[in-house]
């Protein structure tokens, strides 16, 4: 009975804390990423950002320090994707079925200090969207928009394929505590990292309840010639096409001049 009451109080505290994160009455999370603006150049091969932070405590924080758990969720820019399934028809493999995933993160990473099942109950995991299994990935099913159970074949195939390209990842040993309150985690970015703004959400959990959370962000921009090309291909299709065609003609003409034999 007493235990239940104390959990209830802690939950209430945690609720208050999450509403007024940074209030003096509880823990505060201070976080920063090593680079807020990542530039991708044509020979970019991927890199790793570092997120570090500390759990700030003051006099009003209960003196008996619990074991803190951290879940870091990084969401890249949203994108609409379609997942297709092949089946054997008349002896060849044909796309037969497809599902649309709407406004899902093009990059998604979840890092924690220990397995998420040990950090929070299944209910809390779902409510806080902790882990790839619990993050909502909206699908269009007929005319409805909804996420489906995490064991759905299309959803798991989607997550698996994104993971194969290192665009989705989950590592439950990636967050390390340097001291009981100081932590760090790496954020690996693959070579084909999507450009756009990335939101980082850090949830501090103690004894299975949310204590507080913090947010930060970073941006990935492509610079240089190749970005110039990509932007123009999208925005000025006609000019781009004409320039490419001209380029082809000039190359062909140059070749005929250089290698002329008659």
């Amino acid at each position, binding site marked *: 009975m007493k235990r239940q009451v104390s959990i209830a109080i802690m939950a209430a505290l945690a609720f208050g804390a999450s509403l007024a994160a940074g209030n003096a009455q509880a823990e505060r999370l201070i976080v920063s990423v090593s680079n807020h603006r990542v530039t991708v150049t044509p020979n970019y091969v991927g890199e790793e950002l570092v997120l570090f932070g500390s759990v700030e405590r003051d006099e009003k924080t209960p003196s008996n320090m619990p074991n803190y758990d951290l879940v870091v969720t990084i969401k890249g820019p949203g994108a609409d994707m379609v997942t297709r399934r092949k089946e054997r028809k008349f002896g060849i493999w044909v796309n037969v079925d497809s599902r649309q995933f709407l406004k899902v993160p093009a990059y998604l990473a979840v890092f924690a200090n220990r397995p998420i099942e040990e950090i929070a109950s299944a209910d809390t995991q779902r409510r806080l969207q902790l882990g790839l299994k619990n993050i909502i990935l909206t699908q269009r099913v007929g005319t409805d928009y909804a996420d489906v159970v995490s064991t759905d074949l299309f959803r798991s195939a989607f997550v698996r394929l994104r993971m194969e390209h290192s665009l989705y990842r989950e590592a439950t040993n990636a967050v390390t505590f340097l001291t009981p309150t100081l932590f760090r985690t790496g954020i690996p970015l693959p070579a084909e990292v999507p450009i756009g703004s990335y939101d980082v959400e850090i949830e501090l959990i103690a004894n299975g309840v949310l204590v507080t959370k913090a947010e930060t962000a970073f941006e990935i921009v492509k610079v240089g010639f190749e970005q110039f090309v990509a932007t123009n291909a999208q925005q000025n299709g006609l000019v781009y*096409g004409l320039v490419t065609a001209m*380029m082809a003609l000039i190359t062909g003409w140059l070749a005929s001049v250089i290698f002329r034999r008659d």
Partner: protein
Amino acid sequence: MQLFLPIADIPVNMFLILAMGMAVGFVSGMFGIGGGFLLTPLLIFVGVSPAVAVASVSSHIAASSFSGALAYWRRRAIDPALALVLLSGGVLGTAFGVWLFTLLRSLGQLDLIIALSYVVLLSTVGGLMFWEGLNAIRRARRGETITMRRTGAHGWIHGLPLKMRFKRSKIYLSVIPLVATGLMIGFIGAVMGIGGAFLLIPILIYVMRVPTSTVIGTAMALTLVTMVLATILHAVTNHLVDAVLALILMVGGVIGAQFGARAGQRIRGEHLRLLLGLLILSVGIRFAVELIIKPDDVYTIRQIGDGV
């Protein structure tokens, strides 16, 4: 050197792409063809998506056919009237091809159609060429002389109305089959990313009886215009032309073509046809195998929008 392709959206080794351009250029110089039917599959096999491969290769073919067409123009080996008639169909066919390309892409069946078209077209043409080359060699071994069958020269094609005189080619022919041929080549080219010379030249020689003196140059002129048009239309509608990829391929292609042309002069005609047939056939078979064996993963993902 690693290079990131802006439209294909993958990192590639620049020298690998350059080498591919040169190898295909060598083959195209050797056989007097554009080489799109080799280059598009090669790009697909290194990981470029079929749609980007088809769209980008069209600009590569434009470059190689332009340098070829210039040389033929100087030698007065292009029939302008014949080229114009073929083009009237070719332009229409290209526009229709790009439209179908866009439609199939939105239905998610583009990759399949590209692969299937390659299987059917390349296996048929490659098989026929190989067989024909083999027979020619056998006849030559037996010491027989080949007499071109001229008896069928005035078949039904030559009975069609709307006849026109093509002075430089010295033929008198209906425009209907010519426009239809242009239409088909333009259409196939836009959907499959090929210039279509390996189809067009046999049709012009064997069916239309266009003399060999003007056939290659005229075919190149048609290829040039349809591929320039395909490049522009693919860029406008699908935004899939990768200019960086295309430039590397072009540079490799025009260099390779010079060496290929020299090598081609040292090989006898029937051997050349046999080799080309074998090459075309093997690309077709490669696509067929890809379709028949179970894919590593039955699921695929494609981004369709920015999610805004």
